[in-house]
Structures are given as C-alpha cells and as structure tokens.
C-alpha cells in the first residue's frame, strides 16, 4: 500500500504511543478480517469467536496492542503510556451509554475536534436544532488548561431552539467543553429534565491520516424521557450537518500559526486548543506554527 505524498507517517511520539478508537465493536463481524488506517498506517483487525480482538500493522506485519472499551475497539501503534480515557459517568446505570455511529470525514481530525468545541456555528449549520438565527451571540466564557493538562472551557452558554431530543422549546443551554487528548474531546450539556445533571458526549477521533479522520461519538445521556435509538439518531443528524462544512475547509490540516486564520473572542477555546497543541509539539494533522 502506497501513501499519498502529502500524507506522511506520524512522528509525534505522544500520538504513536497513545490509544485511538478505530471502530465501533458492533460493526466488526466475528471471524472476519477488517481493514482501517491509523496515523497513516494500514491496520488489519480481527474479532475472534470469543469476541476478543487482535490487530496487526500491515506495513510491518507485526501485532499491536488492542483493547475494547466503551463499545469501541482501541489500538496503540507504539507502546502505550496510559490507558484509554477514563469516563466515570459511563458507569452510571441511569444513563444510556451508547456509541453514536462513526462518521468518516475528509479533513484533519484536529479540525473535527475544533468544530466540536465551537458554538458559533450552531444557528447556521444546526439550524432549528442547536441554534437559530437571529440568536447568534456567543456570550463570554472561561477557558483554562487544567493541572491534568486538559483544555477546559466552562460557563459556556448558547440559545438553542431544540437543545436535545427531549427539550420542548428553546432555552439557554449550559455547556462545559473538555479536551482530554489531542484527538479526544467531550462536552457536558445541561439535561432538560434533570436540570442539575448533565448529559455528556465524547468524541474519539481516529486520525486515519493527516487529512482524513473517523469521528466515533460516545454518548452518556440520562435515560429520563429518552430512548437509546433517539440519542443515536440525534447525534447522527447533527454530525451529518457538520460533515459538508468540515470537508470544505482549506487547508484540510489545522493551522497552528495564530496568524493563519482570524480568531474572535468566541473562539477562545479553539485559540487555547491550537496553542496547547503547539506547545506539546503535536504536528500530525496540523500545519506547524513558525512562531
């Protein structure tokens, strides 16, 4: 298998030695060979009769570490330094914890993460669902890098006409955004029924190569008033609206030079994310900054 000249192998040790979700286990038939790519490397997947997965790098012909977690198959091309992300609410029994239908996108996974953090596009891309004109203002919010080296945006609010499948009418929804790892992001969103608790959506982004990714959503919604298929349906609706926009971003990789694009105050979380990537020397899927 040859690589496209623009698509190089990953030289970022942090990414090579980390876990990446590559498939919803439910989509992997037993005793079949499946193929995908991770960080530009072609990989062969197999799920055995006991539902245990194994994986192999096709370029080197060697076995690599694999594990099942949250209903997804996770791989590590190098030597894992830590387990896949820990999600406490996945153990809460009053939640639907479901995979949300994996979506392939012809754009860098870092652009996909950035889009996930962005509220400003709700009225334009998710019209009548997550936002609606003329309610376009992004009120100020807080962003920080935590002691755990995560990007955390809090006190985020936005007017939504249909905030979730159970929401009736519009209201100001509160969000918290958290970037756990360069290709892993999640949001917490106020639940319309149990207003003191939050639903959560994790996005495990598989960097297929620098300009292609697969977004694997994992949803932890309170069961109150909603069934699991509706949770999945809503996620797929939202993601299908994002896909054509993301695939029309130029360049496809995320520029880390602060001068390359024009951020505004509403982009505080993305400014922080780009800087955080730059400071950790993440270059895969990015256009490195000259400064």
């Amino acid at each position, binding site marked *: 298998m040859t690589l496209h000249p623009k698509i190089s192998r990953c030289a970022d040790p942090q990414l090579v030695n980390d876990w990446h979700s590559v498939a919803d286990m439910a989509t992997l038939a037993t005793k079949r060979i499946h193929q995908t790519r991770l960080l530009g490397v072609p990989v062969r997947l197999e799920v055995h009769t006991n539902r245990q997965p194994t994986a192999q790098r096709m370029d080197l012909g060697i076995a690599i570490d694999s594990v099942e977690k949250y209903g997804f198959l996770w791989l590590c091309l190098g030597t894992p330094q830590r387990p896949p992300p820990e999600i406490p609410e996945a153990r809460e029994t009053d939640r639907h914890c479901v995979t949300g239908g994996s979506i392939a996108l012809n754009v860098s996974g870092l652009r996909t993460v950035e889009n996930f953090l962005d509220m400003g*596009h709700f009225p334009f891309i998710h019209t009548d669902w997550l936002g609606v004109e003329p309610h*376009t*203002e992004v009120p100020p919010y807080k962003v920080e890098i935590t002691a755990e080296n995560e990007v955390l945006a809090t006190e985020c609010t936005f007017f939504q006409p249909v905030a979730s499948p159970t929401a009736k009418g519009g209201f100001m929804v509160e969000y918290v955004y958290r970037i756990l790892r360069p290709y892993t992001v999640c949001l917490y969103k106020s639940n319309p029924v149990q207003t003191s608790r939050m639903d959560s959506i994790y996005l495990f982004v598989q960097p297929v190569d620098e300009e292609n990714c697969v977004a694997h959503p994992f949803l932890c919604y309170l069961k109150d008033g909603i069934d699991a298929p509706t949770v999945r349906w809503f996620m797929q609706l939202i993601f299908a609206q994002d896909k*054509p*926009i993301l695939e029309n971003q*130029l360049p496809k990789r995320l520029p880390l030079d*602060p001068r390359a694009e024009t951020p505004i*105050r509403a*982009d505080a979380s993305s400014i922080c994310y780009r800087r955080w990537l730059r400071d950790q020397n993440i270059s895969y899927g990015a256009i490195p900054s000259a400064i």
Partner: protein
Amino acid sequence: MNEAAQRIWHPIASSTDLPFRHTYHGQLLGREFAVWRADDGYVNVWENRCLHRGVRLSIGINDGTELKCQYHGWRYANRTAGCTYIPAHPADAPARTICNQTYPAIERYGLIWSAEAPVGELAYIEVLSGSAVFPLRGIAVNAPAKLVMQKLVTYQFQPSGQIKGQTATSQLLSSSDDSCHLAATDGAHSTTAVFFVQPVDAGRSVIRGVLAETPADDLKRPVLYHHNQLLTALREQVEQEFSTLPQPAPFAPVIAPPSAPTLPDIDFDSPSPRGRSAPLRVQVSKKWMTALDIAAFDLVSITGQLPTYQPGAHIDVHMPNGLIRQYSLTNGPGETDKYTIAVKREAASGGGSLCMHGQVREGDVLAISEPRNNFPLRRDAIQTVFVAGGIGITPLLAMSRTLHHSGLPQTLHYFTQSRDHIAFPEILGTMAATVQHHLNLSPEETAGQLRGILESYKPAMHLYVCGPGPMLEATRKIADDLGWPEPAVHFEYFKNTNEIDDSSQFEINLARSAMTLQVAAGKTILETLRENGIELPSSCEQGACGTCVVDILEGEPEHHDVFLSDGEKQSGKRLMTCVSRAKSNRLVLDI
C-alpha cells in the same frame, strides 16, 4: 514556477456561469476563487476561503450585496471583500482590517477574466472587437494547458453559415501560449474563432472558445452542437495522450495569512488611523436636494476602492473652508461604489452646513477620513425599532436598509416637520412596509407617539435613536420609563450641547506608554496627549461620536460627553479624551 503565468490574464468563467445570486467556484493555476456577481452587476473574484476558519466561500450565500459564509455567517461586502458583520459578536463592528483577498475581474467576450498578479491591462483582441461575439460552451479537459494548446491549433471546424458542410478548411491565424485564432472557410462562408485555454491546475484546463460573429438565430444551436461535439472529441484525444505521460503534481498556491489583527489583540477595537487624518480623496459625483434644506452628496473615490463600511458608520469631511464635520453614511449593504451623505442647512451653522450647501459643487474633490463605526447595528434582535428625527435619519437609513435587505423584523419611525422634509423618499418608498412617517408633531404629540411605539418591550428587542437632542432625550426617558433596559437602547447625538467646565487640573498616567502628564485648565486630555506626541484617533472632538474613547484603569472620571450611556458613565471604565476630565487628582489610562 507559475510566476510568469500568474501575470497573464486568463478566463476563469463564462458570464453565464454567474446567474442571479449564484456563487461560482473558479480556479486558475491551482488557486481557487469564489466568483459572484452582485445585484449591481459587479463581478467579485475572491480567495475561496473565509478568513475565520478557512471554509470555502464558493459554498457561501450570495445575497446580492454581500457574500455570507455558511459556517458562522460572517458577511463580506461587494467589491471590498471587507467583513461587515460577525454574528457571534452582534454588538461589535468588525475591524476594518478583516478583509479578504480580492483579484481583479474583467468581463469581456462573454467571459470573466482574472489573474493573480496581472501586469498591464487585458489586451483587446481585434477580431473580437465587434459587438456580436458568440461565446461557446467551456470544455473542461483533464490535461495540462500546453498539451491542449498543441491540439487546439489544429482544430478543424465548419463556418457557422455552412455548419452542415464537411469541406471546410481551417487556418491558424496566430497563436500564443494560451490562445489561438482560427478561421474556417467553406466556399463563400467563413468564421473566425478565438480559443483560450484556462490553466486550471497542473493537469487540468478549460477550453473557452469565442466566435467573432453570432450566428443567425436558427443556427445558434447547431453551431453550439457542432463545436461541442468536435471539442469533446479533441478533449478525449488529449486526455488519452496525457494518460500515457507522467502525471504532474497539482500546483500548491500560497495562501497569504489575512491582514487581520493577530493574537493577542483579537478584540474588535483595532487602532484606527491616528488623529483626524483624511487619507481618502473623493469627488462629488452628484449633489441634489433630497428634502427641504437637506442636500445629499454622492462621493466617489479618485484614489482607488473606497473602504468597507458598516451601517451606522460616519466619515469626517474636511471642507474647503478648513472645517471638519462628521456625516453618517446612508448607504445600503454592498453599495461600495460610492458613499452617500446628507447635510441639513442649519441657520445657526458654524460654517459646516453652509459650506456644504453653498460652496461644494458636483465635481469638487474633498478629503475624507475612512469610515468609523461607533454606532454599530445588532442584527440579532427579534424586533428592531428605529426612531429618527429630521436629519437623524442618516445612520438609521443605512441600518434600516440593511435589515430590510436581510428580511429582518423592524420598523423605522421617521419624525419630520412635513412631507417636504422627508429625505431620500425614493429609497424609503422601496421599503414602505417598514417605514412609518410622523409629520408635524409638537413635542407633546411626539412624546405621545413614542409612548405608543415603545410600549411593549420584550427581551431581544433593540431601539436605535438619532435626532435632535431634546427628542433624543425624550425617547431615552420614555424607553426607560417603559422598561427598556439600557443596553437595548442605542443612540447617537449630532453634537454635544453640554456646557463643559474645563477649569480643573489633574494628572494622567499612561499605563502602556509609561508616561505621566499634567492636564492644565483649559486643555483637554486629547490636546495634552497630542502635544506630547501621542496621537489618538479622534473625530468630532466634542464628546459625541465616541472615536477617542479610552479605558480607565484607575481614578474617577468626570464625564462631559453624550456618547456613553448613563450606566457606562457610572461604571467609570471609559472616557472620551476630547471632553472628559477627572474628579480624582489622577487618572490611569490604558494608553
């Protein structure tokens, strides 16, 4: 490697590719363009990227005056490609520096021509100088322009008058790297054609042919069909040949970073030109009496494209008599070929209105500042109410036209003495459903009307007021009485009629410049700064327009302006350097 080719004009689209309010994706030497025609006919050729997040503008929405990005709704103006509105921050006027890259466009021979860095004018082609040229359909070819050109010079076709014949001979009259002239003759019939090859990318081209004569009506379709068929055959031949050759890598055009403000100054209040500079030269292209005692002026640039403006913006006009006056732009969205202002003749004029009415004539050249917007329009209201008194219509007209064009809910209440005092009636007539005239009312009657207009405030409604001081005061008072919160009430005074007591003396400490200055009695902060070599942008210099605002870090200001709202004045966070003074002995300013 493309530098030479970038200097040459190439066709990038056919005129028919730009129907009403369409956005077309063009490409030349690997560089993508968003190509769109505004309702006024102007053809825009822009870098195909929103400055914000790089989304292609060719998937954007052409509303006839502006191009709106799909992703976050950023709007870019016809001609200038300057950003006019950022929906995520509705209260802010985007910095003038947020301006997309534009490329020149010429429409000729039924084609749209452009170039990345053209040298010289697009040359006229003698054989196409007639008015009846006939463009053929563009034929896209997956092969490099050079290879296409090699085949094109041998292209054989029938003259239009003998389209069914088979015995024509074609003769190559001339050729260059990207075009060739051919003549086909069959008996007494002859047709001259010019073929241009648009180099789309390293391995892709478009053949764009133009016949020197339009065929008779009944022959148009057979002629188009004839060339389509033959050029398609040529295309297949070239593509076949190209498939056996090494495939070139696509061109990689450099996308220059935007000239926009960079981190960390991502705020909107980017520095304006210093002082009261008037860098633009405009000519009065039209002067007319738009109402009793109100003269209107169309100003066109004699120094290049006029800068982007937003509704609510004003310019400084430097008059022949040396005075400087501020006038609001009345233009609708995308009307970037001129600025239109209106001046009321004031009996008690300080000389400004008399000069504009009496002295300034069509053809005169004036120096003006770039537009500044200290009265920005929110476009996220569920209902916008405009209250204009007399000449106060000018900024509100620009605002109302903007909302009208976007179909946003609004009412424009226009208080005048009589029908004869209504300015721009022809424009108001085009949006009659949104305009309510209130004629010849006493102050009491006006107040009564205003109470009716403002009686049912709901959240996300916004009020914009401009007019004579007493009316403005009355409107603000009534809005306050009827429960309108201060941030929903936006106003602009013509002038500051406050008596300013400038007898105090105090110290100012400039935090960023690390300077301490004494402001003497009779001197303003602005004058003191200027005498010490610090030039702040300023405009009216009487506390009305808001241009010379600065942030206060420490100390208690004494406000004398009419720009800030009462709440803003109480918070003591900002002052107008042209009139504000200090209650404390010392002010620390963020300069």
